[in-house]
Every structure is written in C-alpha cells, then in structure tokens.
C-alpha cells in the first residue's frame, strides 16, 4: 500500500492529443489535455457520449498510443514502460464480458496477483494475504466462495473491484462501473470506491454518466466536451461556474438548484408548512404545473401532525390525506 500523501501526483497527462492514426492523416478526438491525478483522490471523468472519453482512457491504459504529448505514471513515461511493469502501476475494471463463470469469486480476485507471479502461478503467502485483504476491503467476503456465474451484476462488479484492488497498484481506472446496476448498487459501488481512496491512498478514476453520484462523492471532476479542452476542478465549482451545463448542454435541467426546470401553467397557489413535508409538497405541486406564490386565492396548509394531511383554503375548506388527492382536487378547480 502507498503512503497517503495528497501532495503527490500519481499520474499526469501533459499536452496530450488522442485519436486514431489512419494512414497519413491523424484523426484527433481530444487535444491539449493537461490533467493530474493525485494520490488518494477519487476523480469522476464525465462527458457526453461520443466525446472521446474511451479513447482517452484507452490511451491512459497504454492500449492505444497518443498522437502527441505524454502520460506520466509514477514519474515514468507510459510509452517507455512494458506491459508487465505497467500492470504493477495501474489496474482496470472494464465493461468487457468475461468467460470466468466456473471460477469462484476468490479465484477471480486471485487473478489480480498475476503481475507478481511466475509461469507456474504459485501463490506465495503474501499473495494469499493480499487476496484476503482485498476481499475484505471490497466487502465481498459473503460471496467470495460462490461461482462467478452465481453472482448478481452488483456482486460481480464488486468482485472485479476486489480483483483490481488485489493488483495492488497506485492507480485504478474504472470504465462505467455502475452501468446496468440498480440504485442501491450504484450508490454502494461509488461509496466503496470513495472509501478505498481514503483507506488505501489509491488514485481512482471513474468514467461515468452518473452526474448526481459524481457530484456527491467525487473529489474532482474531469469534464470532456465537444470543442473544449478537458476541464478539471472541484465538482461544486464546476456547477457554479456553469462548466457542467456547457459540457453537457443541459436541456430542461437546472443544475444550480438540482431540479428539472418546471413548466408553470399560470396556476398559482400559496403554501404553508415546514420541513421535508413542505419540500415534497412543493415538488408535487411544481411537477404538476402549479406555481408557489403568496398572491393566490388558494392557500394550502401542510398539517404535519400525527396524520399527515393537506388543507386547501378557498371558498370552503377541503382536507386531503394524500398528495395525489390534493392534486386531483386542484385540477378540478377553475383558476
């Protein structure tokens, strides 16, 4: 494990241009890239589809050669180190399908030790210890002895993270680790990765489309957009300076308030209440086209007593027990 040192840089990218070399012409996809990945940092790499995220990731992983510039890992130029050496510095979690259904979870995690093994694939005591440590760190011990084909998608993804962990590299790169997972698993994976950066001092880079999760957990965002250099910064700064809106060309979503833009139908109601009951009532009203305003004939009071109810004060008083009833009642009224 690496000494935790937040000033140290694990991987840096200098004046990098990535793309494809076809014959004489270079097809440049992203250029002028200058980024740093610090030890112990969780970085989410985001951008719309087709912007070149995968190409940059492939270049960072040494699968593809840069068109110009360089990637420096552990003070060494990526193009100057061998596949074998790189495997001790960078581990990957990919979206590739695997053929390892007949392996147990523990055997799968054990593959992570391969950079350190000879051709006989004999595990030393140290290797076996690392395997157990990784299983514990990734919290997969409950199903480590199950066959891979018996694991759920979420369990398999955590097992693949344990495998990458077992490779014991300062840098870990994950390509869309939460794709196809349900909300619980998505949150669990992101939390796990965040936790790992804190516990192990590893730098973890995630390519993801999960803007909400990234904003809440990433230490830093890298943003790739069309026709702009890849930006790097604090998630909150990038919300406030509009970088995210610009890169994603967000339509109908106001990131500053974290809400979808609501279309008002010109129907105004006033609202009284407190706490999260008020918040969700507001949400229900706005989602259905009602504008919250003090200049309205309709006054709604949220009664957050033992039995939650809503009181509409107009010509007479009407009490409803659910928000659905409330909205249905308002919809029958003439505004």
């Amino acid at each position, binding site marked *: 494990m690496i000494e935790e040192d937040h000033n140290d840089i694990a991987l840096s990218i200098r004046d990098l241009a990535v793309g494809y070399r076809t014959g004489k012409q270079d097809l440049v996809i992203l250029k002028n890239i200058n980024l740093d990945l610090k030890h112990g940092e969780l970085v989410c790499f985001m951008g719309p589809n087709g912007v070149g995220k995968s190409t940059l990731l492939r270049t960072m992983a040494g699968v593809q050669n840069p068109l110009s510039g360089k990637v420096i890992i552990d003070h060494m130029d990526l193009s100057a180190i061998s596949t074998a*050496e790189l495997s001790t510095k960078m581990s990957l979690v990919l979206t590739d399908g695997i053929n390892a*259904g*007949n392996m147990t979870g523990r*055997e799968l995690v054990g593959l992570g030790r391969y950079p350190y093994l*000879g051709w006989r694939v004999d595990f030393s005591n140290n290797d076996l210890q690392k395997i157990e440590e990784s299983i514990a760190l990734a919290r997969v011990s409950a199903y480590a002895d199950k066959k891979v084909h018996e694991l759920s998608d979420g369990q398999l993804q955590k097992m693949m993270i344990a495998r990458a962990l077992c490779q014991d590299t300062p840098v870990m790169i994950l390509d869309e680790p939460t794709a196809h997972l349900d909300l619980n698993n998505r949150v669990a994976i992101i939390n796990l990765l965040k936790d790992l950066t804190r516990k192990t001092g590893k730098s973890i880079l995630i390519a993801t489309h999960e803007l909400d999760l990234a904003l809440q957990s990433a230490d830093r965002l890298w943003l790739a957009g069309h026709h702009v250099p890849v930006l790097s910064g604090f998630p909150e700064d990038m919300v406030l300076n509009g970088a995210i809106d610009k890169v994603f060309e967000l339509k109908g979503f106001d990131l500053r308030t974290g809400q979808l833009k609501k279309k008002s139908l010109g129907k105004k109601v006033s609202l009284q209440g407190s706490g999260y009951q008020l918040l969700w009532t507001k949400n229900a009203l706005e989602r259905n086209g009602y504008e919250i305003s003090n200049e309205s004939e309709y006054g709604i009071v949220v009664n957050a007593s033992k039995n939650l109810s809503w009181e509409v004060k107009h010509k007479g008083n009407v009490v409803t027990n659910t928000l659905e009833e409330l909205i249905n009642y308002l919809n029958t009224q003439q505004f």
Partner: protein
Amino acid sequence: MDRSHTIKLTLLLPLAILILFIINISLGSVSVPFDEVLNVLSGGEASKNSWTNIILNFRLPKATTAIAVGASLSISGLLMQTLFRNPLAGPFVLGISSGASLGVALLLLAGISITGSLVASGLTSWLVVSAASLGSGLVLLLVVIVSLRVRDSMTLLIIGLMFGSLTGAIVSILQFFSSGEEIQVYLFWTFGSLGGLNWDEITALLAIAGMGIMISFIMVKPLNALLLSENYARSMGINIKASRFWIIISTSLLAGSITAFCGPIAFIGIAMPHLTRLLFNTSNHKILIPAVAMSGVIVMLVCDIISQLPGSEHVLPINAITSLLGAPVVIWVILRRGSIKHSFSG
C-alpha cells in the same frame, strides 16, 4: 489447489489410465493369456514368440499412440476454446485439420510420383508428417492473422469453416485427377488410425507432442488471464501477442502432429474440454490442462479397445468410434451436470 482435484489428478485418473492401458494391450484379434501379457509388459518373454512380437510391436505402439492422441487433441481443443473464447472452437472447426488434410492430399495425390521413390527408403511417413504440419500451421497462421483483424470470434469461426470448405474443394479437385490407388491411400489416412506406427515414428510423435504439451503448461498464466478478456489480460501484464503466438504454436504442434501421424481424428478436441470442465468444475488451466489430457487418454484407450472389436479380425476406423461413442456420453453429461454456458460467460 482443491483437495478433490488433487486426488482426481494424482490418483483416480492415472489409475484408470493404467488399468485401461493393460486392458487395451490384453485385447485384440489374437487372444493372449492375461498373465503372458503382464509378463511381456514387465520385460519378460511370452511362452510363444509371436505373442511377444504382437504385444511389443503391435499392441504396445498402438496403445502408446492412443495415449498421445488423447492427450494432444484434448489439450489443443482446450487451448483453442480459451483463446477464441468460444465453446465451439477446436482444431477441426478452425480448419487446422483441414489444413493438414490439404498438405497430405497435396503430397499423396499430387506428389505421389516424387514420394513413390521415397517409400522404399522409408521416408514417406516423415514427409506426410511434414506436409500435415505445414498445412495445419499455415491454416492456423491465417486464422491468427484474421483474428488480429476481427474482434468477433463468431466471424473467426465462420472463416475457419470457410478454410475447411476451401481445402475440401482443393482436395476434391486433386482426387478428381488422381488414380484410384492414390485416392485409397489418402482415404485410409482420413479414416484415422492409431496403429501402424513403428517405434521411431512413435518416438518422434511423442517428442513433438511432448513439446506442445510443455508449451501449454507454460501458458497456464496467460490462458487463465484470457478468461477475463484480452484487455484485462494485458492490464495484468500479459503480453497478448506473444501468448497468442505460443498458444497457436502449441496447438499446431499437438493437433498437427497427431493429424499427420494418425489422420484427422474427430470429436476428442471439442468434446473433452467441456467434459473435463464439467467433471472438475473449474476454469483454472493449471488443473484443466492435466485433467483434460488424462481424460482424453482414458477416452481414446476405451475407443481403441472398442474399435478393434475384441475377438474379431476387423478393426473399425477410430474416427467413427470416437464420435459414435463419445457424442452420446457428452450429451448425457451436459444434460445431467448442467449448462456448459457457465464456462463461457460471466
């Protein structure tokens, strides 16, 4: 390694091989008393000279060949299935045996006038081996070049099938212009045969196949890593190009040499890896390679016992027996033990 695996690998399978080996040698068209067989096998002489001769120069070479065939074809099938990530892969599907057939056909059908003079000097079988090895090596090389260009293994399989059709067509044309005698020589080669090899040839076969097997053992690490994916394997420090090259060299030595010496023997290469994965319930090539080799040996020894129709003078083509007997067994195991799909998906 799992303890049950260790017991199977070091005790059960070798014991089964030993018993089948002795049964294999005891049975044949001429009945030799069992104690006489054991006597000869332990280095003594049988009470009849002809019995010693039959055992040492006919049955022992054939059983030894069966062992080499079973181990080699099973291992090469396993290597191909892992490399191409496809359960249908095997030496035959990818055209390796078709390549060998083409090489042998070119030699026996087109070049018989050259080889005719060499028959006397006893060089024919060596030429057949070279022709078959060259043919299979060439087809495998083409398959590899194609595999570097396409990522989809289905495409590769279709291309392998096309190679098979292509070589089949060339062989047909060669047959059309050949004499009946030449065609018969070629046809007998395609039936497959475990017998008819002398000790020199067996030594060569064992040496070449042994090299192939040794290379396969060195490839355990890349083979296991390839179960994830090529990208994963690379990220774990595996040199993909070198590994692919050596896996193909190993397969070429194994499948090529067997096809050269014994003809294209069907079924074993595709079926044994599946059977072994189900019986051993593992993906680890460190266990699978010796396991698949020993299981292959067992099946070949049984097939050979049946093909020589104990007590009769006829010997059936080994090629027919392997499929006739093996296919139902594999179907039964797959239906009983569950899906083979698990080995080929996450």
